[in-house]
């Protein structure tokens, strides 16, 4: 009709189409329009026609019958809970779809950039921020698991004030005014602020302003693990403030002396990445070689190609002997070695050292050759625990070998507050005892737990009138204070961090405080503000912004307005400026005098190391981290004295026996683990355990080793204790591990992992000679009873590169968070019921003295011919068309047959409702439910579960692909473990897609399946580890 109109009279304005169909004159539409109010909808319904034969009686009968029926059917109908939408939906939130926020982790001093995944405004997962120049999209296990701290029910939820020995709940207003008064009145007498190292420019500014407002304020900063000895040694040698960064990826040879640079020292995430860059199976020639000389069996030592057992107190003579060997035998000369150094080191012979400390001289000479051959491209790394002289010797050695090339010249860690030495802390305690200190503010620090016994800090606190502790969780210090102020979790706080020159990382909250907490900076800021009454959540944000506008914005010559820049910075989470570090690499020869070749004392030496999981104890209430096995010993929920088998025999002790460690009048008692690879007359203990007050989870986990800290001479290190007396205690404490401690002399089980081809290895030389060596002389194809099932579309697979994998366990932590894995608690782990879907198997071969370690992440292999599927009576586990071995939780009746029949034992069974069992239902609290991934079932008891290849992520990717109507690509999906893997050892993708990067790993010459001869056809490929030794055979 539009047409007719037009032809009749040309009135364009009356003439426009109402829809494209109409424009295109689609007949249907025109029809439809004609009948817009079509007649007779009511016509063909006539009472007598349609209701004839249905008498009133019948009708009523029917009516009542149906009513009755409905009544019966719907009686007591259960609604599936209310639907509660947003009143006004925020633009960025789409229910059911995740959001991502760039922020910064505050778990340790490295402050890695993180990307927080939120669902409907609740953070549910922490990953690394890919845009962050240092950690490049990766975080460590602590970072992954720290999300649990946010929702931990045992967080402090409101301010507390102590009156008459007991704490009372109170309001912030009340506390603020009280404290403000006491601060004002404190004029003259000292106000001590005790904090950990502050990496935040803005917080530093804030503290400065506090000092301006209260001149008598003094700031003490400490950390129980730090780099200060290395730094001071560096200062003595090169004059710089901080030890420079190392270009690990450029080192062909790495010699690490008691240095755990893959485990806990420095920015581990970055270091493991750089280290693994030289473990690229597609460029085997470039493999680096790692020598480790250490007393403790560390994660780094576990990954060494050659390992020497050298006690920390022997390291100095070791380094000097090396120097001697290199200068004399390899006649390497350097200006750095002056006359008296020369004749000093001449007293140190490597041979003697070797014989005296039971080190294989042949292996040592291999090291010497390598160092000599790779001058300028080798790196000798002295662990932070070594004393200053050793550090200086190490610097000298690197100088002599010209390895200084490997120091990063234009970027370095930022030297923030200079650490307060123990002397200053002692001074503080003195003045506290003298009553010169009126107020002590613990700025998220826990000195009562951290400080060594002999400082007697707690006693001194009692002399202070006002003790304020800002903390997330109850802790030892809080119990000794008058005010306990609950502070925000990282994910609730604003902040900025500057750890490296020119790298400024921003922290933004991803959820508003879930309890009555304030962020610690805001609390201080509020006190120095004119009127504490008008506190607002944005208080510190404004402060932060102004500081950035004034001090940081100018550093970046940004073309935008500050607002725009700020928004962008928040979006990226990190900005980089043009700042350059000035590093002077001119060696000022230092005097190494009065050093005698140390006699190897029969007395014990003890090394205190940072816990891989709990760091300095701040994560002790985190069940996931408590349960995450120790990367080497696989011990959970406890720390222990790691001792060598020989020394143990000498003391006639065995696993789980208690020993007393005594060091100048300080002593602790803790259980023993016979750790292969530990030096003789040496014990390594981890700190961070044995918290008295830290919430219900950490109760009775481990022993506090802080009392042992060496606070005596400054030249010596706080972590290395010499001349320690160790004695057996007639009692024992069961230390639980997820993998039994291997027995070396049991011929039946010895090297089972090698005999069974579970771990397949080679050497670099072997591979270069014959890349196909792994599969030679092996039956390539096991015959099949049935034809294989055809998976033509996407088929998921994984490859794990054992050359890159260092066994840190970050992937396990990530998996736990992603898949709502419950914490089961110590006694359940003891029974062997840990629930982790992904575990890292650790195998020893060789001797207990010189063990060869192999690690292997083990997860569901998603076998094509899965044994578990055949035996499930209810078909609760079967294969999906894209090759996944699926687990249908709600069909599972829990016969456990599948688990019995799984050759990899990767299935996990909910023997109990574990959440209900741990610490009296601690993890059943409502706050924890906010954390659980809504895309993953929270399994009930009696149900089998296992790795699903993160099927929720696969489904998300698939739905997106469908939305875009593109085919789903393998690279669209990244599993949680893959994302978290700091060394990129885990690859995931589509087995059928030949043009994917994954394909070359899946079909790599080094690729093998575990238990290949069972012919279950796994979809997880392992790339055999190549040890970079000098020989061809393993």
């Amino acid at each position, binding site marked *: 009709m539009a047409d007719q109109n037009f032809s009749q009279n040309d009135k364009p304005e009356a003439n426009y189409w109402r829809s494209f169909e109409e424009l295109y004159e689609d007949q249907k539409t025109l029809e439809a329009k004609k009948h817009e109010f079509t007649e007779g909808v009511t016509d063909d319904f006539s009472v007598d026609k349609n209701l004839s034969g249905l008498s009133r009686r019948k009708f009523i009968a029917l009516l009542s019958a149906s009513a009755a029926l409905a009544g019966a059917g719907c009686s007591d109908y259960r609604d599936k809970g209310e639907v509660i939408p947003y009143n006004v939906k925020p633009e960025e939130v789409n229910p059911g779809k995740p959001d991502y926020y760039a922020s910064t982790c505050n778990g340790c001093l490295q402050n890695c950039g993180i990307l927080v995944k939120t669902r409907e405004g609740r953070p549910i997962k922490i990953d690394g921020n890919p845009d962050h120049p240092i950690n490049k999209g990766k975080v460590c296990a602590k970072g992954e698991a720290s999300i649990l701290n946010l929702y931990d029910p045992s967080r402090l939820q409101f301010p507390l004030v102590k009156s008459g020995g007991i704490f009372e709940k109170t309001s912030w207003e009340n506390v603020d005014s009280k404290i403000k008064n006491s601060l004002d009145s404190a004029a003259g007498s000292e106000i001590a602020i005790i904090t950990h190292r502050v990496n935040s420019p803005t917080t530093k500014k804030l503290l400065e302003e506090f000092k301006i407002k209260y001149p008598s304020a003094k700031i003490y900063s400490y950390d129980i693990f730090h780099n200060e000895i290395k730094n001071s040694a560096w200062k003595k040698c090169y004059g710089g403030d901080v030890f420079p960064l190392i270009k690990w990826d450029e080192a062909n040879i790495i010699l690490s002396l008691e240095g755990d640079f893959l485990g806990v020292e420095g920015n581990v995430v970055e270091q493991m990445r750089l280290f693994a860059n030289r473990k690229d199976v597609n460029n085997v020639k470039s493999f680096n070689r790692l020598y480790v000389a250490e007393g403790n069996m560390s994660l780094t030592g576990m990954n060494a190609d050659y390992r020497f057992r050298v006690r920390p107190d022997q390291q100095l003579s070791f380094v000097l002997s090396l120097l001697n060997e290199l200068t004399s035998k390899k006649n390497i000369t350097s200006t750095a070695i002056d006359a008296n150094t020369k004749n000093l080191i001449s007293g140190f012979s490597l041979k003697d050292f070797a014989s005296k400390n039971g080190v294989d001289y042949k292996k040592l000479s291999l090291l010497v050759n390598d160092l000599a051959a790779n001058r300028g491209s080798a790196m000798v790394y002295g662990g932070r625990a070594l004393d200053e002289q050793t550090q200086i010797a190490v610097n000298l050695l690197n100088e002599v070998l010209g390895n200084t090339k490997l120091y990063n010249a234009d970027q370095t860690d930022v030297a923030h507050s200079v650490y307060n030495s123990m002397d200053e802390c002692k001074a503080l305690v003195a003045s506290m005892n003298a009553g010169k200190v009126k107020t002590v503010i613990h700025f998220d620090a826990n000195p009562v737990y951290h400080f060594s016994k002999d400082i007697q800090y707690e006693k001194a606190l009692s002399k202070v009138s006002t003790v304020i502790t800002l903390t997330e969780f109850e802790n030892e210090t809080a119990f000794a204070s008058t005010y306990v102020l609950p502070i925000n979790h990282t994910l609730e706080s604003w902040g900025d961090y500057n750890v490296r020159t020119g790298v400024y990382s921003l922290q933004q909250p991803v959820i508003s405080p879930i309890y009555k907490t304030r962020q610690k900076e805001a609390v201080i800021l509020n006190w120095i503000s004119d009127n504490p009454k008008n506190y607002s959540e944005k208080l510190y944000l404004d402060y932060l912004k102004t500081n950035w506008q004034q001090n940081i914005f100018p550093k970046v010559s940004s073309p935008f307005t500050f607002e725009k820049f700020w928004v962008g910075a928040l979006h990226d989470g990190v900005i980089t400026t043009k700042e350059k570090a000035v590093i002077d690499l001119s060696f000022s020869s230092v005097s190494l005098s009065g050093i005698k070749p140390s006699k190897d004392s029969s007395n014990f030496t003890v090394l205190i190391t940072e816990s891989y999981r709990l760091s300095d104890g701040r994560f002790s209430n985190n069940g996931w981290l408590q349960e995450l096995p120790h990367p080497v010993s696989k011990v959970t929920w406890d720390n222990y004295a790691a001792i060598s088998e020989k020394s143990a025999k000498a003391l006639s002790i065995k696993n789980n026996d208690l020993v007393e460690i005594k060091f100048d009048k300080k002593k602790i008692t803790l259980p023993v683990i016979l750790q292969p690879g530990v030096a003789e007359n040496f014990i390594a203990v981890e700190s961070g355990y044995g918290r008295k007050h830290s919430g219900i989870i950490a109760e009775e986990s481990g022993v506090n080793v802080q009392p042992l800290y060496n606070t005596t001479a400054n030249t010596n290190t706080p972590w290395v204790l010499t001349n320690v007396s160790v004695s057996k205690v007639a009692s024992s404490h069961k230390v639980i591990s997820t*993998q*039994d401690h*291997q027995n070396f002399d049991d011929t*039946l*089980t010895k090297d*089972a*992992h090698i*005999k*069974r081809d*579970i771990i397949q290895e080679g050497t670099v030389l072997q591979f270069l000679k014959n890349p196909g060596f792994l599969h030679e002389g092996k039956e390539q194809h096991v015959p099949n009873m049935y034809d294989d099932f055809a998976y033509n579309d996407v088929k998921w697979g994984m490859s794990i590169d054992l050359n890159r994998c260092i066994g840190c366990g970050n992937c396990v932590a990530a998996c736990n968070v992603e898949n709502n894995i419950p914490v089961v608690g110590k006694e*359940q782990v003891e*029974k*062997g*019921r*840990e629930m982790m879907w992904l*575990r890292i*198997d*650790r*195998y020893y071969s060789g001797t207990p003295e010189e063990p060869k370690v192999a690690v*292997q992440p*083990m997860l569901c292999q998603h076998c094509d011919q899965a*044994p578990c*599927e*055949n*035996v*499930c*009576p*209810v*078909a609760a586990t*079967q294969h999906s068309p894209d090759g996944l071995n699926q687990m249908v939780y709600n*069909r*599972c*009746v*829990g*016969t*456990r*047959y599948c*688990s*019995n*029949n799984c*050759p*990899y*034992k990767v*299935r*996990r*069974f*909910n*023997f*109990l*409702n574990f959440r209900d*069992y741990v610490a009296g239902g601690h993890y059943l609290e409502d706050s924890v439910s906010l954390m659980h991934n809504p895309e993953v079932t929270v399994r*009930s*008891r*009696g*149900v*089998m579960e296992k790795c699903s290849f993160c099927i929720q992520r696969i489904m998300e990717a698939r739905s997106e692909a469908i939305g875009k109507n593109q085919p789903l690509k393998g690279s669209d999906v990244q599993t949680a473990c893959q994302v978290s893997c700091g060394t990129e050892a885990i690859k995931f993708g589509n087995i059928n897609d030949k043009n994917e990067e994954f394909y070359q790993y899946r079909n790599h010459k080094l690729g093998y399946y*575990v*238990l290949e001869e*069972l012919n*279950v056809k796994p979809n997880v490929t392992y790339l055999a580890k190549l040890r970079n030794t000098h020989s061809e055979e393993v």
Partner: protein
Amino acid sequence: MNIDYSQELPVIERSITLADIDRLIAKPLDEKPDKKFFIALSITLTLLLIGAVSVTYLFLNGTGVWGLNQPVGWAFDITNFVFWVGIGHAGTLISAVLYLLRQKWRTGIARFAEAMTIFAVMCAGIFPVIHTGRPWLAGYLMPYPNQHGLWVNFTSPLVWDVFAVSTYFTVSLVFWYVGLIPDFGILRDKTASKLKKTIYSIFSLGWRNSHRNWQHYEKAYMLLAGFATPLVLSVHTIVSFDFAVSIIPGWHTTIFPPYFVAGAIFSGFAMVVTVLIFVRKVFDLQEIITVNHLEKMNKIILVTGSMVGYAYGMEFFIAWYSGNPFEQFVFINRAFGPYAWAYWIMVSCNVIIPQLFWFKKIRRTIPAMLVIVILVNVGMWFERFVITVSSLHRDFLPSSWGYFVPSIFDLGTLIGSFGLFFTLVLIFTKTLPVVAMSEIKAVAEGAQPSHNGGKH
């Protein structure tokens, strides 16, 4: 004493009239239970109560109350299941196989053995249900039409179990009942009490001792026996498939079906002897259940025991011969690993001790055989325990090795199953004729027509 084996020993010792047989066998049914009975019952009920408590606790908390773990997903639960199914087999064997073999002596013990079969299978049936993590969904194991439109996985040995055990139970029950019908008839006509009469009448279905019925009856009995025989073999074969079909070394063994069946008969006979020794004493049925019966069974125990011993040896041989390292490891580990203690209990009880039955004296002396058969039962329980646990606790990956320690609830459930079994046995002795009256009569002296056609 030396016996002339050329002719069969009389089944009933001194010759008693048919009426006496009725009276003798029906005695426990007519009399009020005495003190002895109540003491026995109170003991068994206590055991049953213990079981009930542990199972309740299990249901309230989950499978975790047992000692199970990764990798040992099965331990006491399946051990008990296999043990009880095994016990059951003797009954069917005696009633069916010996019937087909025309072994007259079976008549004295058949009824009792069948009853034990049924009770044992009841005990066994409990475990597959309670061992699941979500017992309230155990119905999922049955192929019934449901709203998921989903059936069970017919390739799973556990489903085979469901069919095998339920079939076995049904058939045994029917077989038993068919045998009981004539006896119900007898009791109906004997009893004075009206109530009993009604009950017996209902169960006798109106049996009239008509020969036109006897004819079909015997045929049917023959057919049932004919089916029960392969069935009994198939059931334990299928039970053994639970293990044999898996890929776990120590389970994945082709010798299992015969091995399990032999073991089942072995343990079953041991249990029958154990119980009969008491029953014949308590209800003075010495004439009907004679020492000869017991001796014959002891002979079978000796044979099957040796077969089991052979199987043990053969497993080791094949493990060595196959050259499969996993297989070899498992068996060495069995004998010398953490579970060696269990293994050696098993070997001594099952292989060594029964050898004493080579001596006629021991075969025929009650106390000696009592000790031996009880030990055999212990040994057979441990055999199943060893097979289940010692294979699981150290399988392919050393990283996932573990050790199973039973909890008190494991023990409670085991005890409970014995409680249930003996309670049922006791009730049975008081409610039903423990010996098939009509059958006994048929084999009594002069019971069959002399073949001169009755001319005199």
